[in-house]
């Protein structure tokens, strides 16, 4: 299979490219980037072709593209790829505006092109295990979830609102939000959030807490803060405690690690020995293209999490809870 990558603005592109170029059944066939230097460097690194013109890039022979541009540019790049009939794996969050996300979904629908969201946490075996436990009814009815997706401050365009759509809330609510929806088959009814900038001198929020009421009546909080110190032994965490009427299950998605006390570098690091979730996600994406089956994580999954992010910003602004209004996608194009 031939796969192209649109932009290396998001550092995950390097991870995808590395994994793709290691596979026998995949050829990383081309790279496009609006930053020519960055694109050429990446092409050099992964031993592939850099095509400086997006139209030309999209007209090349490719089975799918991965979109890793800045969040605000996803809309333009996804729609262009859809028109060129290229199936798409899109980095999260889906977009910076709800209208953009809806437009991207409709465009892919209209062109009959796969749009999969990059939510790799669904491919962590521990997370899959917890989903099975919850869906088997073992803990009864889910009544509450306490979740965190902490991180270190990523810097760069991630803290430039125009490019990223916001700070910690825009970046880090969506992973846990997606897992809550995926594990419980529930949707958000009401959102409250307290967001602030307290860790770094940046123009976007770097911390906060989001409080949710689900349609089922279950309650939840998500902590998306960039609150991990520089000395923290990992980039961050994804953790959830799910309380049910019969029991409680907790998941620490990155618990499978050994701790390395490194005198030479004067630091302590987690050495992960767990499965590579990104690899699992790419496998699944490529498999869905080969089989022509619908993607396992849809554009709508991306949109629903973005709606919660937007409601969180609105709530933080008004200091009131916000009833979530879901955009109707009206599948009239299909």
């Amino acid at each position, binding site marked *: 299979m031939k796969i192209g990558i649109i932009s290396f603005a998001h550092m995950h592109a390097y991870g995808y490219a590395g994994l793709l170029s290691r596979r026998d059944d995949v050829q990383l066939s081309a790279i496009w980037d609006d930053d020519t230097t960055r694109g050429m460097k990446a092409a050099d690194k992964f031993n592939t072709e850099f095509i400086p013109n997006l139209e030309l890039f999209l007209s090349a022979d490719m089975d799918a593209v991965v979109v890793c541009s800045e969040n605000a540019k996803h809309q333009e790049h996804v729609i262009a790829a859809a028109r060129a009939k290229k199936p798409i794996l899109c980095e999260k969050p889906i977009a910076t505006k709800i209208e953009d996300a809806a437009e991207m979904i409709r465009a892919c629908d209209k062109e009959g092109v796969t749009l999969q969201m990059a939510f790799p946490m669904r491919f962590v075996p521990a997370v899959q295990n917890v989903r099975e436990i919850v869906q088997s009814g073992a803990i009864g009815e889910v009544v509450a979830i306490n979740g965190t997706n902490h991180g270190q401050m990523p810097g760069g365009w991630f803290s430039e609102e125009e490019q990223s759509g916001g700070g910690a809330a825009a970046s880090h609510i969506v992973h846990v939000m997606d897992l809550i929806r995926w594990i419980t088959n529930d949707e958000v009814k009401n959102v409250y959030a307290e967001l602030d900038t*307290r860790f770094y001198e940046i123009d976007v929020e770097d911390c906060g807490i989001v409080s949710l009421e689900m349609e089922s009546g279950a309650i939840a909080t998500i902590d998306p803060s960039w609150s991990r110190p520089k000395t923290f032994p990992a980039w961050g965490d994804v953790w959830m405690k799910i309380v049910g009427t019969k029991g409680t299950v907790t998941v620490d998605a990155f618990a499978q690690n050994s701790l390395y006390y490194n005198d030479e570098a004067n630091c302590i690091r987690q050495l992960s020995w767990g499965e590579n979730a990104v690899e699992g996600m790419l496998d699944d994406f490529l498999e869905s293209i080969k089989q022509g089956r619908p993607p396992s994580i849809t554009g709508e999954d991306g949109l629903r999490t973005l709606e919660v992010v937007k409601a969180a910003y609105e709530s933080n602004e008004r200091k009131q809870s916000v009833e979530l209004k879901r955009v109707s996608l009206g599948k009239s194009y299909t």
Partner: protein
Amino acid sequence: MIKIAVVGGTGKMGGRHLEAFSRIENAKVVGIVGRNKSRLKEIAETYDILPFTSLEELLHETEVDVIDICTPTHAHEKFAIEAAKAKKHVICEKPLGLSKDEAKKIIDECGLQGVKLFVGHTLRFFPEYADARKQVQNGAIGTPGVVRLNRGGPHPGERGIWYGDETLSGGVFLDLGIHDFDWLRWTFGEVERVMARHVKRSGEEGGALEFGLAILVMEDGTIAHVESSWAEPAFEASFELAGSLGMITYNSTESFPVRLHIRKQATEPSTGAAVPKNVIKKDPYERMLEHFIDCLQGKCEPVITANDALKAIEIAEAVTQSARTGEPVQLLDKGVTQ
């Protein structure tokens, strides 16, 4: 020697206080009040003190300086006021009352009668919490950002039916969350605004549960997340204090210095690990009660005042109200208050 009587001495908390007082110099328990007559007799014999079935009777028949109230929360007001009217100093378990009004009545009566009032917010005497506060105030984590506190255990309904009844215990925020609310206020100052959600179930296969998730915004801007849970298999408390210069974390289950496990014969069922709770010379209850005795003797000022206890109830009430209405509750108007 300060003479003490423990009301509710036959309960779990009463037992802890009796045990602690037995190790404190300058304090002597002279009597206890309880309703369970056989327990009462047993305890009175163990500690060599006089048993009574009413406070009135105890006040009539013994010479006592302090009434220590360890009853269920809903009885605090009645006993505290009775004790104050008899001109006895009062030590009362937390929360001081079921509501701000109840707490206020107790405080006013103690003021009127000129007796001292101490409230058992034990968390301030847990070394890990006291130290964490000191670290934060010394700037160890820089500007505090988001702090997370968890506290939970099994639903206490089995220990006493009154816990499951909000009109008797005040519910999980007032009974359990109040520890963390008070610690937050002690460490970061007044609470500006709260938002909370809450679930409560009973009579289902998994038994009763009560679980709350609260956000508190402190006057210094710190955002606090508090989980208060009566849905845990065993007691667990933890905190994570993240700031611009670092983070301090603690988990009660990860800091047991001693773990004892007795292997059973293969035919016997395993009983699991037995964990000594406080491997510390003076447990927090003893530290607290000793401090109250020192205060009574004029040796120091209380680390926790009756007004602090009142404020803690005010926060718990705001959190409970927010969980009921689904909207935030403003406690401090920054435009008016300093």
